[in-house]
């Protein structure tokens, strides 16, 4: 990822500015900057996930699948589906009569996901769609379940994205947001900060040849709403029975809400 700073337009009001890691950028520029990050890391994304989380991301995703309640014949949307970890599991669950849509705003990630799933023999019930989470190209009341794993923090207007995810869910359908969050233990929090701001960029440089993208990862996690704030945002988006599950001491949280 390039080093260039992209200052927000000073003529714009505060409403036109958002954060990109710890920096403020114009809202119109965040998506392209996030895209740069993911174009840069797409090829090494899975390897880096395994290294950074010591493989635990598989357990976080597994718990998400277990809680999804997805059954044969269901329609599932996996937003920011990237390299397809959740899509693969959903594809097994929905069977031949169901459908899974792997959506990602980033063409490079989508390409890696499509190749990986095809190589593993996943075909027939999976569709690949390049889509923006804030403007989902699907009809109202269409999916039994919608998931977004480690994607929401990169979205410019999270409230709009949550509203659109709620829109495409069928009544009774479930939204699952798996995302980095705030550790609940101060000691863990301190160790996690040290790890994120020193080890992650170093690993990024050594493995993916890109420390800036992993610096952005650490910063974007700190800027993401905490557990209770995100739960409130889901309720504001019209979802009910919203709750969250802290995992690994709150390093990651799974938020779940139901469309009434």
């Amino acid at each position: 990822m390039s080093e260039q700073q992209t200052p927000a337009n000073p003529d714009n009001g505060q409403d036109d500015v958002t954060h990109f890691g710890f920096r403020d950028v114009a809202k119109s520029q965040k998506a392209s900057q996030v895209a740069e990050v993911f174009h840069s890391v797409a090829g090494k994304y899975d390897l880096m996930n395994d290294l950074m989380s010591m493989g635990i991301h598989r357990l976080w995703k597994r718990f998400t699948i277990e809680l999804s309640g997805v059954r044969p014949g269901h329609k599932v949307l996996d937003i920011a589906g990237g390299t397809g970890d959740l899509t693969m599991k959903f594809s097994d669950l929905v069977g031949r009569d169901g459908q899974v849509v792997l959506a990602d705003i980033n063409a490079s990630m989508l390409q890696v996901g499509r190749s990986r799933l095809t190589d593993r023999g996943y075909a027939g019930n999976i569709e690949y769609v390049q889509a923006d989470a804030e403007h989902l190209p699907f009809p109202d009341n269409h999916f039994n379940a919608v998931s977004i794993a480690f994607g929401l923090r990169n979205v410019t207007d999270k409230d709009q994205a949550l509203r659109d995810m709620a829109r495409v869910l069928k009544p009774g359908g479930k939204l699952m947001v798996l995302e980095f969050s705030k550790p609940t233990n101060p000691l863990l929090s301190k160790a996690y900060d040290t790890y994120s701001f020193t080890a992650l960029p170093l690993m990024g440089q050594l493995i993916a040849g890109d420390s800036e993208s992993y610096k952005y990862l650490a910063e974007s996690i700190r800027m993401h709403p905490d557990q209770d704030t995100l739960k409130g945002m889901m309720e504001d988006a019209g979802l009910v029975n919203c709750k969250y599950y802290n995992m690994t001491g709150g390093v990651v949280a799974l938020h779940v809400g139901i469309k009434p």
Partner: protein
Amino acid sequence: MFPGPTLLAAVTAIIERALNHALELDPAGQQALLGALEGPVQFHITDPMPLTCSLHRAGNRVQVRSQPADEPALEIIGKPLAFAALATGDSSVFTDNRLAVVGDTALAHQFQRALGQLNPDWEAAMARHIGDVPAHFIGKRIRSAVSWSKQRSVP
């Protein structure tokens, strides 16, 4: 809350891997178990801490979830040792009431027979995650506890 979601997911991953590995090696047992899983089977562990998990069919594989099923075809309730006995092929867990059944009792027996026929290598599955020595130690303890609970249940 203990065990937390991450640990629960690790436990279900171990069980799921052992079951599916056993299924791959035994096509007849596979058909028997998948046949018994037309609907989800739910397990309530009552003691020492209440825990609910469920078994689902996903294509030709079995999926283990640490969450209750929406509409279980069968519910099995009991203590961990009784479930360990069921998993290791003990055919008397239902008749001596170590496990209670809600739903179709015939389905419970079909499920138990299928599991007995499979004989999964639980120790090898654990060893992949925690190493050979701890897995063997835990396996040995579970086997002796199951044997003890079986003797104790004989009137």
